[in-house]
């Protein structure tokens, strides 16, 4: 059994080497270095090498360290929720919608509540898109409505109802003090209360959002860093088509 476990890898299988970088409210002295060492020891590390010490002034110091760590995991025990619909390009998605849904689908998107950072929602929705993937506005079979920044949850749901949306896209970029979790929870609770939750797909995205987190919050899917319009569009098209088949 033991040989199935994997550990961090430096240059020898099973060596458990990890690179660390962290700061402490301690001066750049021997005491500071010892504090860094003790922190790593409490984390279960051994062979601790504090190889870099940077004085950050005002009583703070950054430590760069290597250490070995006894932690090990069995890959067979790992369970991760991922979006597992295949990814199609724009033309394929348009063809797929035409064939399997047979009408234009409506997607309403917004950065909700306090969030003013539209870079994520724009990358997915704007005509222009991002990194050689056109945004949803460019899709022939998608009616994409981007409401922009700081849209109250109530307003997003009102528009989604008016437009008879097939999917809602919510972006949350600012995550300080977990504000994104509060905002996303508020939206989903309102949607439940208004009876909209199961009338459309609820999808969220942002740099700190994973599919697993999205599911936990009650969404249909979540897209994190490195996701493109093609990922989102394919998921929407395939999931909607699947729901039709069931009915």
């Amino acid at each position: 059994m033991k040989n199935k476990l994997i550990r961090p890898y430096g240059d020898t299988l099973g060596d458990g080497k990890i690179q660390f970088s962290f700061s402490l409210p301690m001066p750049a002295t021997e005491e500071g270095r010892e504090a860094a060492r003790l922190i790593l020891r409490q984390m279960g590390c051994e062979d601790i090498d504090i190889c870099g010490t940077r004085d950050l002034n005002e009583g703070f110091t950054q430590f760069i360290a290597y250490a070995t760590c006894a932690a090990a995991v069995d890959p067979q025990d790992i369970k991760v929720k991922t979006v597992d619909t295949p990814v199609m390009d724009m033309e394929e998605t348009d063809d797929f919608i035409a064939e399997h849904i047979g009408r234009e689908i409506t997607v309403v998107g917004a950065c909700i509540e306090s969030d003013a950072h539209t870079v994520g929602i724009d990358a997915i929705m704007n005509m222009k898109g991002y990194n050689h993937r056109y945004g949803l506005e460019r899709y022939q079979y998608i009616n994409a409505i981007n409401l922009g920044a700081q849209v109250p949850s109530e307003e997003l749901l009102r528009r989604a109802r008016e437009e008879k949306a097939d999917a809602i896209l919510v972006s949350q970029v600012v995550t300080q003090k977990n504000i994104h979790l509060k905002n996303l929870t508020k939206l989903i609770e309102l949607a439940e209360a208004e009876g909209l939750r199961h009338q459309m797909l609820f999808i969220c995205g942002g740099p700190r959002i994973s599919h697993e987190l999205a599911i936990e919050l009650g969404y249909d899917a979540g897209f994190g860093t490195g996701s493109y319009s093609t990922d989102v569009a394919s998921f929407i098209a395939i999931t909607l088509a699947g729901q039709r088949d069931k009915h």
Partner: protein
Amino acid sequence: MLKLHLHQQTVERARKAARGIAGSFDWLFRDYSSATIERTVIRMLGIDGATSDGKPLPNMVVEHLKARNVLNRGSAYWIANAMAIKGITAQEAAEQVARGELDLVSCGTASQDAIEDILDQLSDSMLAHIQAQKEHREEQFAKYGPRRQPAIYVIVATGNIHEDVKQARAAAIEGADIIAVIRSTAQSLLDYVPYGATTVGFGGTYATQENFRIMRAALDEVTAQEKRYISLTNYASGLCMPEIAVMGAIERLDLMLNDAMYGILFRDINPKRTLLDQYFARMINAYAGIEIQTGEDNYLTTSDAIEKAYTVTASQLLNEQFALISGIKPEKMGLGHAFEINPEIENCFTYELAHAMLTKELFPNSPVKYMPPTKFASGNIFKTHLMDAMFNFIGQLTGQGVQLLGMMTEAIHTPHIADRSLAIENAQYIFNAVKDLGNELSLAPDSFINNRANTVLEEATFFLEKVAEEGLFSAMARGEFADIKRPENGGKGLDGVFRKDASYMNPFLTKMKAEMELA
């Protein structure tokens, strides 16, 4: 020496078009005022504070006058009138209004002479304070020497002003020349300025006058200790542009983010409201000797940085002309641009160099502000750190005015203390390593860089001439800027714009215009 050969006739054409566009808003600047301009006047009369439930007194007074349909005479008139009739201070007048004990309109009518005397005194006193702050800054630079070029500009953004102070002090000691306190994410759309010291914010810290004072005092201490004047900056943008400008002038901020069109395009604030507010805000900045910084980097975070490079140049030229109208001199114009080209594109660095040289050479006397990679910064902090180094290389090589340092954790969180320190180390290493390299290099004849810069300039000129012909508002309504459609009567804050009565008074506007010899 590294230098472009720009087609000077094209430069002239571009400036002429931009001048025409900015010059067509006389009617707006002359005949209109806004709720936030009136709140600014109220603040300049010496009124500050908020009710127990957090409503700022300047908002209470403006709402009081608006409800009585008399705001078009100007808030200055009504406050001075009450002061003359009741024998109270401006602050007392505002407090009584807030408590519902005073009606500014039905409290009697003082003589015009009495009102003018009061306003004359109060405006002299405020303008003298702002002048004194400006002179203090100039003395400090004279004593400790000018800011390095490019200046090292870093952000703090913990949400808690007291935590910000620790991080700002540490950064300043390490070598930062300019500290920017990033605002809480929703503040630009608040139609009031929160009051007092704040300890909770999202993605940043609220801009309040007390927060400005706390940070300025901390940086003054570091200035004395390090014998290097540490500048402070914040955002005079959004729905309270001139109010924040005057708070900065009072508390001696040294730079202010202030873009003529950013609010319209990227925050959906009404076009008339924005242009009107920036006119007065920038006049305060000019009077206070505050350097403005513009937000052209935003065009590139939403569009392709090569294809839309000309929108940066066009916006810089418009910002320049609007700034001149408000009395800002070229040496106080931190026109913006950014290093945002996809790093996978072959020769992307060469393109960046061409664009950076174009900005620097179009505005040779301005402390142009160079923004770091953000769009292609990723969770791979090692790669981002490397991109930041390339960005720093161009900053020093082309002599940018202000280098807004990139953070390796740009794509992850607001900077931790060590992230900021590593960014400063990165910049100091590169700046020192290539310090005089620019003097040793020249472009090959018919070089790609020279041709590219001229191409961007031509595209910008063509665009500006088209906008000049159809009008700025109409061009914005058609989505010609940043692919975003902004109709003249759409967006937030239009209900705060009003036409001035013939009897309207704003002693600060009158005096600043006279002193700076503005039309």
